[in-house]
């Protein structure tokens, strides 16, 4: 079923988060918003983390390049990377076409939920995007 972007949580730095329960564990599926993809403009490279890497909320988990600018991707939650979308770096046009389903980047088993508290709902995120122009 297609992911509904109005039901996701968002970081100030434009990552979206979909929290689900799998086998009694909370899993955060993370991607970047359509607004950010439009701003990134012509994404050409992406680096992903390795499965098993642990991150704190706010840590970098990957990097992208667009218009000769390298930008980090930040994890909104703390935990262990349990899955990466390894086909994505070679299919970045798919990220433009479908940022919320095909465009998922990593799944993180949440070990620290404190980062979730600072995330925005869709309405608040839309307001931020409107203010950013």
């Amino acid at each position, binding site marked *: 079923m297609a992911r509904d972007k109005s039901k996701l949580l968002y970081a100030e730095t434009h990552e979206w988060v979909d929290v689900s329960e799998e086998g009694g564990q909370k899993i955060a599926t993370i991607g970047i918003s359509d607004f950010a993809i439009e701003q990134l403009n012509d994404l050409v490279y992406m680096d992903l983390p390795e499965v098993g890497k642990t991150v704190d909320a706010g840590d970098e988990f990957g990097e992208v*390049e667009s*218009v000769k600018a*390298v930008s980090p991707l930040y994890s909104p939650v703390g935990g262990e990377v349990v899955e990466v979308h390894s086909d994505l770096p070679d299919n970045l046009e798919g990220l433009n076409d479908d940022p919320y389903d095909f465009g998922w980047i990593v799944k993180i088993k949440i070990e620290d939920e404190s980062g979730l508290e600072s995330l925005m709902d869709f309405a608040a995120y839309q307001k931020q995007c409107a203010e950013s122009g």
Partner: protein
Amino acid sequence: MTAESVGRLLPFRRGDAAWNMALDQALLESVDRTARQDGRAAATLRFYGWKTATLSLGYFQSSEPLPPTFRNVAQVRRSTGGGAILHHHELTYSLTYPIQARDSGARMELYRGVHAAIAQVLAERSISARPHRLDSRLGGDADAFLCFQRRTDEDLIVSGYKVLGSAQRRMRQAVLQHGSLLLRVSRHAPELPGLFELTSIDLDVEKLSEQIARQLGQTLGIRFAADGETEQERTSALQIVADRFASDRWWNRH
């Protein structure tokens, strides 16, 4: 930004490849840290040259296979994007600038602002340099190994040849932009003429960098005051040389 903003200017100095890149990284981390702690930070403008001819690769660029012509020059991988650059007879600048965490992607206004300031300084020397976007029918090769054979909108072009290109690296609250202005052709990349070959005008790097600092200050509303890197930035840069820019692991990462 207010007209009274004060920035820091690190005047022209030559350095080796790893030091040049490491100091830019240390400045980026310093401005980001200050912006996050204090909510504001001073922009830092630096000018530098290269002690020996150096090939720099873009952050994501593969180090294999390297064209044979570049195997005997110094080598370094940048932390910024884009293609390879043969740094030899050029003026290199870096501008480290505070940003908001919510600002996404490349900061196009910085590409435009810095390049417009440099174009203005060149115009005062009777050199007409225009952004590629104004003459974009004059292509370039998007997949070329050398960045100066590629074209992006804000690259400065003189007589059909790219003479200025820049790239960026972001942290949460700061962005580093550095770029190369080709002054003369290098024997290691004879296909890339510099401003001297294109215009017969010989530019002095120190005077040129002073003029660019003044013009860029007007463009950005910042008064750049000459200073040096802090002791903490210098210590940090030395560590970054060892950990990153002088290491084989960093060079071979892609």
